[in-house]
């Protein structure tokens, strides 16, 4: 990536360190709850709204006590560029970006396709929640920056949805409800045992994941703004599919409790000052 605006390092190709012994398998432990979430709003005072989220690190071998770190800033409502056509409602643009040091394989500075795909998912999830016609002729930019690899796209997406919803509430943009993200997966240890449905799966922990689904959920309205299901269901029976969805909604409700608690604290802290 010879980008003349950045320092590109040596001409020759560099390879990440290759180890002589493969790492031991992650300690597979079953837990029937989502990982602990740390959520804090207001980390970027210069943005109109911001939030920061960390997921607890389930894998003891991995250094550091959290495995997924996400920061999100919201800039808006702000004026649209001159060329934009007249819009009676707010234009939502989302950017999802991995930090170069976030994943095992160092990522470049330009957004690749998986990040754009996450961006569209996030946009769909949030557009349902934002009351768009309250802010005519304006735009809002939601930037989600991933600082540490949660190892799996769907966990990352559910983290992005939760942190973006807290940041939007912090920015004071009208929403019908807070949006919470949740993931559930159909996991089977080995082929003899029947597959079990697990909430907030950590891929390193499970032997083989048959299917997983990530849901963006509006708790009080009990509606789903974005749903992403992937994998192979045994047979086409809808029963397993519905159970998987229910489990992910439970995960969403747990995540939403964290959002509500954090937003309450922001208001209390705010009142303390004013």
């Amino acid at each position, binding site marked *: 990536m010879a980008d003349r605006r950045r320092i590109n390092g040596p001409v020759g190709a560099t390879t990440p360190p290759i180890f002589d012994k493969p790492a031991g398998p992650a300690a597979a432990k079953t837990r029937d709850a989502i990982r602990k979430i740390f959520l804090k709003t*207001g980390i970027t005072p210069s943005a*109109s709204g911001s939030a920061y989220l960390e997921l607890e690190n389930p894998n003891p071998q991995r250094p550091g006590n959290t495995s997924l770190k996400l920061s999100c800033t919201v*800039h*808006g*409502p*702000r*004026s*649209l560029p*001159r060329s*934009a*056509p*007249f*819009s009676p409602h707010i234009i939502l643009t989302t950017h999802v970006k991995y930090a170069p040091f976030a994943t095992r394989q160092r990522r470049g500075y330009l957004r690749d396709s998986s990040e754009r795909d996450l961006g569209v998912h996030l946009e769909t999830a949030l557009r349902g*929640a934002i*009351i768009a016609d*309250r*802010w*005519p*002729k*304006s735009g809002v930019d939601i930037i989600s920056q991933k600082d540490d690899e949660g190892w799996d796209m769907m966990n990352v997406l559910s983290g992005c949805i939760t942190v973006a919803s807290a940041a939007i*509430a*912090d*920015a*004071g*943009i*009208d*929403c*019908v*409800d*807070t949006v919470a993200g949740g993931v559930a997966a159909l996991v089977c240890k080995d082929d003899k045992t029947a597959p079990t449905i697990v909430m907030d799966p950590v891929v390193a922990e499970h032997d083989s994941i048959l299917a997983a689904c990530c849901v963006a959920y*509006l*708790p*009080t*309205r009990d509606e789903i703004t974005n749903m992403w299901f992937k994998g192979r269901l045994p047979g086409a029976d809808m029963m397993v599919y519905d159970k998987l969805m229910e489990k992910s909604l439970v995960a969403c409700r747990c995540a939403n409790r964290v959002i*509500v608690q954090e*937003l*309450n604290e*922001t*208001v*209390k802290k*705010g*009142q303390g000052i*004013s």
Partner: protein
Amino acid sequence: MAQTIAIPGQLLGPSSKYVAGPGTHIHEANLYSSVLGTVTIAQPEKKIAPGPAKRLTKIAGLPSSSAQLPTISVSRTGISEKREVLPEVGNVVLCRVTRIQPRQATVAILVVGDTVLEAEWQGVIRPQDVRATEKDKVKIYESFRPGDIVRAQVISLGDQASYYLATASNDLGVIMATSEAGNVMYPVSWKEYRDPETGLNENRKVAKPF
């Protein structure tokens, strides 16, 4: 009940008992909060007879004006001082002139009412909106100069790029101006500012200092 905290999506009350104020929205006959903030309920002030009642030619019978409903609203004053507000039609705004063209003056809206904006919205003052009298003899460069601070009123949402503003009343117009020599000037008449150091006068559409 005054200082309860509202999270977006929190049920506030049935929409038959309250009227939705700012920061709330209606969904299936219920009022929900749409902003993070504190709930305030404004009791309706007693209605004085609204001017000569317009003769309603609409067939729909004039409903009996039942007692007015209290307005419930969620205000963010508690949270952060940065409150994003959109210029509404009729708001009095403070803006800085950024560009002067014969047909219009382009300004950046900085303050709406008394809330300072983070983002800057673009506004346009057309010659015919500069003053109420002799609209056709207005010359823009005699009314505004780049860098002036102008108090104006929003008259329409305008086109996709900018809001339409007007300074057509006495208390609207330039409130702070810097002269060519770079010193802050003070108003001497309704259409002139004077530079204290050089003593020169410059033409402006002066706002009546109150």
